[in-house]
């Protein structure tokens, strides 16, 4: 899986060497400066870990990066609308330009005609992931539009605003450094403006790189551990749920090894949430706030016991709890969440980004159940929604989206 090769090469190697050197140093150099420094609580003898800015994630591969890639700390989602004159040939030119930019920038190299090449030099795990809205696919090949590509079915609880919906082309730009995100987004947007205009931009953040052990489940701004049941990248379960197999209609072969992305802007009413006490908060979700473990006990990753009842005979995990409502008896009705927090002058919430092979079979039934009943609905409201087809990755001589032109 080249695309998710998380090539932390130099950093990891240096870290290991640094660790070995530290061990040797501690054994050989006990005395003199080392002892003095240790006694004084000064700098440790170990070589410092190199800055993570140099870390790169491979752009080329079977799958696009930025999906199975462990989520970086910062994200920007940019939705573009194609101009009226951007025909099939122009879309192809646009995608070639953007793929070339992404390939260079994610490798820590300046893009062609990059006016700030120095800003490209520390990519900090930069990934650029492309998603195609219905409008783009129709522009290139109307017969290739998957059934699920377009607005989601209406949900009663949604309060969608046009300014956060739709888009012909999505750029998901992620890195562990916001400057890397900014520069890549700037370069990609500059190379898009002859073809398209920006429809919406959503910024997202998670914990800073290194703030928590790798692999820790994120917390959203309501304080909840969010994403515990995600399928694990690299497993057959993940592959089945996330990667498109090219089936599902004659025109869908171009999506093989690709995926589908749902981006929902979910506003949180944190002022109302403040009024709820801790037990109430835990019952709304069905998990402990402290560690994300189900209310029926165990650790974060232990299965909830939906049959368990309390002393009064009521379910320990209430009927309206989020994790009960989100769960389906059908194991195929699952998605891979790669969400980010947002906060701006208008409020706070979640840029909910979820990958799956088939939106209609996976996301929609989950959301229908949550729309019908989920106590969390008291505090969270979807105000934006967009669906994108995510093409497979490409090789060094190709471009993302080339299969659509085959």
């Amino acid at each position, binding site marked *: 899986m080249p695309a998710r090769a998380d090539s932390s090469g130099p950093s990891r190697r240096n870290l290991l060497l640094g660790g070995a050197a530290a061990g040797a140093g501690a054994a050989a150099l006990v005395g003199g400066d080392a002892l003095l420094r240790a006694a004084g609580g000064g700098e440790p003898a170990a070589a410092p870990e190199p800055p993570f800015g140099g870390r790169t994630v491979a752009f080329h591969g079977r799958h696009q990066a930025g999906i199975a890639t462990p989520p970086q700390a910062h994200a920007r989602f940019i939705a573009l609308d194609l101009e009226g004159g951007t025909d099939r040939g122009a879309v192809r030119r646009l995608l070639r*330009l953007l793929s070339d930019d992404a390939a260079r920038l994610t490798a820590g190299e300046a893009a062609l005609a990059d006016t700030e090449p120095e800003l490209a030099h520390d990519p900090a795990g930069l990934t650029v992931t492309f998603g195609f809205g219905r409008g783009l696919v129709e522009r290139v090949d109307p017969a290739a539009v998957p059934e699920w590509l377009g607005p989601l079915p209406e949900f009663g609880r949604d309060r969608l605003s046009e300014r956060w919906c739709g888009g012909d082309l999505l750029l998901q730009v992620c890195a562990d450094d916001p400057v890397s995100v900014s520069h890549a987004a700037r370069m990609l947007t500059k*190379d898009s403006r002859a073809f398209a205009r920006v429809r919406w931009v959503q910024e997202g953040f998670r914990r800073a790189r290194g703030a928590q052990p790798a692999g820790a489940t994120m917390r959203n701004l309501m304080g909840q551990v969010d994403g515990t049941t995600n399928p694990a990248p690299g497993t057959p379960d993940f592959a089945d749920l996330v990667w498109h197999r090219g089936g599902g209609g004659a025109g869908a072969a171009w999506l093989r090894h690709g995926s589908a992305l749902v981006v929902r802007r979910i506003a949180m009413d944190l002022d109302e949430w403040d009024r709820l006490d801790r037990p109430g908060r835990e019952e709304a979700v069905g998990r402990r706030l402290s560690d994300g473990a189900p209310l029926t006990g165990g650790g974060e990753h232990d299965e909830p016991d939906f049959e368990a009842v309390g002393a009064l005979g009521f379910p320990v995990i209430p009927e309206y709890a989020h994790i009960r409502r989100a769960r389906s008896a059908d194991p195929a009705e699952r998605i891979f969440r790669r969400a980010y927090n947002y906060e701006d002058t208008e409020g706070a919430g979640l840029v909910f980004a979820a990958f799956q092979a088939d939106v209609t079979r996976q996301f929609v039934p989950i959301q229908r159940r949550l729309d019908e009943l989920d106590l969390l609905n008291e505090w969270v409201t979807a105000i934006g929604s967009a669906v994108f087809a995510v093409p497979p990755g490409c090789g060094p001589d190709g471009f993302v989206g080339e299969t659509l032109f085959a």
Partner: protein
Amino acid sequence: MARPHPALPLAAAFLAAGAALTGCGAGAAAGSGGGAAPEASPSAQAAAITVEDAWVKAVPAEDGMTALFGVLVNDSGQEARLVAAATGVAGTVELHEVVTGDDGNPVMRPKEDGFVIGANGRHALEPGADHIMLMELGEDLEPGQEVEVELEFADGSTTEVTAPVKDFAGGEESYEGGGSHGGGHDHGGAEGADGAEDHG
């Protein structure tokens, strides 16, 4: 100026060859992207030169001129000298340098002796510095399109570079004798005695 300017007659000669080979549709031809394919014998200068990160600034045909940028890389122990270039998309191609004009502003003008790429050296072609000027454009150069440009060296050997066209706001230096890249601004003041001397 004892020597005649070498670039213009050679460019004209190559224009004819380029037009015959590529017609006017060079921009639509798919290239391998940036690498130069040597066509001459291994000892030729062209065989030693590759062009890294080549690109051309996008302009509408009515602007009339644009430029090719990139890095000329010499992999041999011998100096190479680029003396001319030609492409199917432009009627005239010149090798330009940018110097400070009489009014203190940068102006571009043909580079008398071409671009020298030292042994195992690199020569950057950049906005605001040396570049290959494409003039008398016959078509819009649109972002993402590819342009093929033939480079000719002092020993007569040639190589071809394929460059994508990119949207770019800079590279607006005025041209001695009038005109500029892309924007069509004519800063005027630069076209005095300096230009006459240069072409004399």
